[in-house]
């Protein structure tokens, strides 16, 4: 208990200078005025870490990062020395281990397991979630076989190649490709296909296009290095004939348009490597734009990309209906007509499968809130659609103050008068004063009107110049005049 004595000694010493004899006596007798941070149990020794765990468990709090606080809690417990044979745990060494790939990132696990879904609606909701990818995608059979044939052919031929896949968001591009690759991986495990490696990068997940090299090397070897080194290793791997490598590599590049910079060196390299004789690199690129190679890429990159292209068309309403019903197999909680309504609405706008699934999930949630545990009906779907396709601007105009509504009216009449979309505040103010007089409203000062205008600009009903806030301020209406009329007429 030496450290304990010392602790108290120092504390008390600082409180009253000198007089050490008296203080020591007091400690021995146990009368102390300074507070004890934590009750110290002498017979059961608790290590600080364990104590922290216990504390966490009891209080359900996250561990406090504040060092001062920690000191206060555990200062009277003897800290155990780290055993000598354990690996060093300085931040630098940890980072080194992470870069080498010896430790893998982990996420804290739950203390309690989630209870499983039991009601039919909950089950339906979990199956309708966008992240729940079914084993075989309905309505994409043709594209599936196209990609499968391409990849299988390249693997058997033992040569490289590129493919470009395009289509609007939510049409199942990435899902189809990954399911094809999963199929191939399973096939190569059963030795029906030559073995291959699979690497996927996503343009949106890279902070910079050149980080693509780092990501590829990381997925091939597990090590994280700088992009210059990564580029060199990849170049050596692909250009030199010496090594008798080499498994074929399938590289999936998602969001290709993000990887394109002005120099386009990354895209060039990614598409140039497959044309080298020694490599077997098969690149599949995915983007939204159909004519991206012609529009954005340089001539020489387009030439390397080749003409093997595939376009995913938006889903039609029949296909959307099939997708949703396939997901709902096993639960009869949806009215088929309701599903059809969702499919038709979504297909008429974008043909995005994610959107249809989201609306269905929302409808299920609404039904649940109403206490209806079994069936989702038309009315629920209608409500969800209304919530998804709303026009909040009309409501915002309705909720504006009287002055703001007058300003909107003044702007409209000013636009009608001049015929030009852009108006100047001084003209609007003139119109506003006459409007106020007409309606028997007290005339407002210029500053008040300006403040109201800037408030309308902040909620994006108007587009205003950020630079100057005076009479010459330019104002453009951000809603259509019909909306304003409609909102103001109803009163």
């Amino acid at each position, binding site marked *: 208990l030496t450290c304990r004595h010392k602790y108290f000694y120092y504390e008390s010493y600082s409180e009253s200078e000198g007089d050490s004899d008296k203080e020591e006596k007091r400690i021995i007798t146990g009368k102390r005025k300074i507070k004890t941070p934590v009750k110290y149990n002498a017979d059961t020794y608790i290590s600080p870490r364990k104590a922290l765990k216990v504390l966490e468990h009891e209080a359900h709090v996250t561990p406090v990062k504040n060092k001062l606080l920690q000191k206060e809690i555990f200062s009277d417990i003897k800290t155990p020395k780290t055993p000598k044979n354990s690996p060093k745990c300085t931040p630098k060494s940890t980072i080194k281990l992470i870069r080498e790939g010896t430790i893998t990132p982990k996420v804290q696990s739950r203390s309690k397991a989630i209870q499983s879904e039991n009601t039919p609606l909950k089950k339906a909701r979990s199956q309708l979630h966008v992240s729940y990818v079914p084993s075989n995608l309905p309505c994409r059979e043709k594209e599936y076989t196209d990609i499968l*044939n391409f990849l299988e*052919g390249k693997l058997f031929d033992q040569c490289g190649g590129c493919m470009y896949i395009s289509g609007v968001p939510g049409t199942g591009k990435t899902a189809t490709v990954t399911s094809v690759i999963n199929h191939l991986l399973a096939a190569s495990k059963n030795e029906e296909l030559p073995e291959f490696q699979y690497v996927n990068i996503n343009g949106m997940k890279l902070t910079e296009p050149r980080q693509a090299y780092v990501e590829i090397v990381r997925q091939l070897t597990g090590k994280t290095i700088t992009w210059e080194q990564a580029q060199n290793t990849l170049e050596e791997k692909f250009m030199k004939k010496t090594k008798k490598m080499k498994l074929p590599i399938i590289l999936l590049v998602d969001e290709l348009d993000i990887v394109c910079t002005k*120099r386009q060196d990354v895209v060039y390299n990614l598409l*140039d490597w497959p044309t080298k004789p020694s490599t077997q690199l098969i690149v599949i690129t995915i983007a939204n734009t159909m004519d991206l190679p012609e529009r954005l890429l340089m001539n*020489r990159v387009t*030439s390397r990309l080749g003409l*093997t292209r595939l376009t995913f068309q938006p889903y039609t309403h029949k296909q959307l209906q099939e997708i949703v019903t396939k997901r709902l197999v096993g639960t009869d909680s949806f009215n088929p007509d309701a599903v059809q309504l969702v499919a038709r609405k979504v297909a008429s706008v*974008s043909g995005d499968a994610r959107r249809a699934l989201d609306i269905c999930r929302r409808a299920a949630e609404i039904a649940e809130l109403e206490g209806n545990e079994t069936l989702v009906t038309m009315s629920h779907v209608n409500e969800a659609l209304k919530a998804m396709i709303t026009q909040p601007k009309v409501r915002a105009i309705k909720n504006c103050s009287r002055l703001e509504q007058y300003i909107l009216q003044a702007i409209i009449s000013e636009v009608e008068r001049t015929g030009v*979309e852009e108006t100047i505040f001084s003209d609007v103010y003139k119109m506003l004063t006459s409007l106020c007089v007409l309606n028997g409203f007290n005339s407002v000062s210029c500053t008040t009107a300006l403040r109201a205008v800037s408030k309308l600009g902040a909620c994006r009903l108007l*587009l205003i110049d950020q630079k100057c806030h005076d009479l010459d301020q330019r104002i453009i209406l951000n809603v259509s005049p019909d909306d304003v009329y409609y909102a103001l007429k109803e009163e």
Partner: protein
Amino acid sequence: MKQVFRVLSSFHTPSKRRSGHAKDDLATPPKQRKAANDENTPAVSPSTPVVLLERLSLVGSEEKKSQRKLFAENGVYQSARKALHSTYPTSMPGREKELHDLKDFILRHLHDGSSATLYVSGPPGTGKTASLNLILQEETVSSELKDIYINCTSIKSSSSVFSKISKELGVKTNGKGEKGCMNAIETYLKVNHKPVLLVLDEIDQLESKNQSVLYTIFEWSSNPNLKLILIGISNALDLTDRILPRLQARCELKPKLMHFAPYTKQQIVEIFTNRLKSAGVLDIFSPVAIQMLAGKVAAVSGDVRRALDIGRRVVELVDRKKSGENMLKSIENLAEELGVAKTVQKMETVDLKQVINVLNNVYGTSQHLSDDIDDSFPLQQKIVVCSLLLILKKAKNKDVTIGRLHDIYRKVCLKRNIQVVDQGEFVSLCSLIETRGIMKIIKKKDPRLNKISLMWDEEEVAEALKDKQLMSMILQDDECLGKL
């Protein structure tokens, strides 16, 4: 159970029978089961009846595999596809003159011991890099000089090319910076033994602010003391004149120019026949088909990569069709399949029709669009395009912003009792149309002020929309335009 296992395992892999027997004699039943499991596929547990039934098929796993391969890749098609792969070729028909010139240039300067520069230009896919590669592989050339090939897209910035060169030369640099590398290279070139051939591919990537890098490199090669032959490759015809005007001032600095013209029809035909002949599968393409393909590609770009790509694609399509037929056949006569399958396969040549099909898909993008556009082009997007057409045709003021298009779209929709999407949704609708390439959105400060321009021809759009009745009704609607 035990008996069955032994029989099955012995049946599958005859070579391993002996070891299996040895285990049978010694091992206890559970262990034996494990052994049997190991011999076959370890992933599936052998105890289920389904698996057992599957194993009772007449064909062993080895045989199955080979059979599957037979179906997946028809030997002929595969070798044709391989022959048409666009890697560096070993022979280059149609480029004899250029090859000769290049070789002559290098050899002449080798014998003189002088340094020189050459700038090779030409559109992509005309065989610039490939012909240089071919020359460098020849013994007579490569033994007498040290060749360095640098692709300028693979370096970090234009000035780091020096460090790359010094690394390739294996020179020690005293300074870390670019200056140190430069000096080291110069001293190396002054005292070296073999002449150096420096090939800079895609040299236009080396453009910098005042072109100091390019000037430095080009000036090295004009210095008679340094034995350096420099060859720059790029696409632009007039790169040296445009970005390096100072080289014109002195005659010895001026690089020699060489242009690779796009391939003509005859040359592409020659390349095809050459490649297919060397693989022994010439008769897979009918001569007319090759003529057609070559004519089309030569007329558009003269890019041989593109021609080879189309050729490969045609072969792939034919192969797929063929294998599809085979599969059908195999289902029809399962019994005969084993014996006959090999003899039944007769080769199908690529004919004109298939080539035209692929060519149409490649070149006529919009026409290709209209094939499947009618059911999968969402209705709202159709209406947006129609309203855009209406503005462009009828209105006086032709510049279209998203705000204005939205106003007119609203009027069109309300008249026909169709639900209107609001402005935020409308912007995303427009960007979805943009991905099809029908129109282009020019970004401004605010989404409402974004400008829209039609990228396709109006007739073409009208053709693609197909929904004639709706179209014509909207296009006649002058009232929706208002007074603008």
